[in-house]
């Protein structure tokens, strides 16, 4: 059990290291990076809203392609993208899977069989539903990746501020984000130093100390959090979130973002008619 705990912590911190820390594309010279962050945020969120409100598989698949386009145009590394997204569709697929049989025993069936006298199987509507769920999630996550890594965290908070998101929400987000970086690296170093100290020790003796580990992490995170807070205060943090004073005029890039969105919406409307 204790070993399992330690292994999990180690895996977790490694996972965060590889995914979280390698992903800063906000200083690249891509489409989203060069756009006005307010505009980019509004447009990207609108795409997400479209994806979760409209129940048309082809349209959502189309939106997904657009998110991929954004990812490419923003210079976000494909390998990085795949790595950060791989778990989410997997989980969604597992959740969505049972729905392919829904509504149970109501034709039309794509594939059916007799089960204890009932006729049941994969239904068209069930398949449609699970596919929809799956596509929605993966599309929304893709756009989220463009938001966090393309706009970049610093400018994202600024944009949220100027769009009137509540301060509490922005503060929570920024603290969580900053804090995760810190604590993950600390936990990682702690595990390494423990490892080096117990190199040849009897596993049983070493296990005695395992129970301290979690407590220590909690204590440590409290202590670090306090110091980090002081450090932010020292550098001028006063509870508010000054967005960066930024240009307010729109450039052709902002306009082209807006145009892409309008184009997508009108296409959808025309086809729907």
């Amino acid at each position, binding site marked *: 059990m204790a070993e399992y705990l330690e292994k999990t912590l180690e895996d977790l911190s490694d996972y965060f*290291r590889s995914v979280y*820390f*390698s*992903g*800063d594309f*906000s*200083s690249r010279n891509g489409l989203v990076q060069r756009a006005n962050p307010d505009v980019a945020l509004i447009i990207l969120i609108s795409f997400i809203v479209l994806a979760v409100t409209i129940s048309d598989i082809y349209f959502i698949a189309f939106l997904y392609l657009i998110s991929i386009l954004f990812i490419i145009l923003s210079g976000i590394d494909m390998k990085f993208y795949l790595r950060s997204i791989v778990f989410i569709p997997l989980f969604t697929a597992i959740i969505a899977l049972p729905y392919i049989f829904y509504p149970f025993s109501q034709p039309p069936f794509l594939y059916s069989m007799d089960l204890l006298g009932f006729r049941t199987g994969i239904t068209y509507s069930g398949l449609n539903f699970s596919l929809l769920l799956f596509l929605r999630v993966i599309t929304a996550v893709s756009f989220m990746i463009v938001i966090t890594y393309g706009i*970049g*965290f*610093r400018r994202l908070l600024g944009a949220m501020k100027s769009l009137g998101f509540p301060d509490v929400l922005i503060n929570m987000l920024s603290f969580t*984000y*900053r*804090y995760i*970086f*810190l604590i*993950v*690296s*600390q936990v990682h170093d702690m595990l390494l130093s423990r490892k080096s100290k117990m190199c040849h020790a009897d596993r049983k003796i070493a296990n005695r100390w395992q129970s301290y580990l979690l407590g220590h992490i909690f204590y440590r995170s409290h202590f*670090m959090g306090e*110091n*980090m807070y*002081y*450090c*932010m*205060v*020292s*550098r*001028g*943090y*006063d*509870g508010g979130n*000054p967005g*960066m*004073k*930024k*240009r307010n005029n729109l450039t052709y890039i902002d306009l082209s973002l807006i145009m892409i969105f309008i184009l997508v919406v009108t296409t959808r409307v025309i086809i729907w008619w």
Partner: protein
Amino acid sequence: MCLYILQDISFSYNRIRVLEGINLRISRGEFIAIVGPNGAGKSTLLKILDFLMPPDSGSIYFMGKKIDDFHLKSLSSIRKKVGLVFQDPDVELFSPTVREDLAFGPIHMGLEENDIDERIRDVSRILNIEHLLDKPPFYLSDGEKKKAAIASVLTMDPEVLMVDEPTANLDPRSRREIVSILKSMWKGGKTIIISTHELNIINDLVERIIIMNSGRIVKDGNPMEILGDKKLLEENNLI
């Protein structure tokens, strides 16, 4: 002109006294080193001088004004004038990239994006960390972290610069670089306060040394007088 006046300051963490009866006057343009054994209270004193924690008792004046309102908003104009580099660079660097950490202070000072970028460029050139700007602080070596932490305060261009252990973890060349940066900032009219264990770097750097031990100021004088007193240094774990 007196920048700081501390009168009989005491401070405790969870009811454990760590600063006791601190009396101190600091003038504008001074270069001060605070030295003393581990746990003497040097870092705590620096945090008090940055108004991060209110003292338990005693009064503190900054630029002739008594500071007794420790609310974040009331102190924000003072914070622009005072910068503190923490001892542990890991708490100083909490952003996804070094660049964003360097921007944190200036953003909170309300500077324009172009202005911020310029400051980041200048400071990172001076400190030789241009190649680290887009890395996560997490990937830096300890010495690189220290430099980035110092840079994250230098971008605020504070009038009073306090650095807790400026040369810890640095290689000899970086050490010389940091020392010469501190020196040139001091020559440029800033007030510099550092805490350190390294007597050899402060020898020909500072003009005033404060020895602390067990939360008290043991001795406050010029380097000649203090560094010549072997017995005093030995009593305070300094040699």
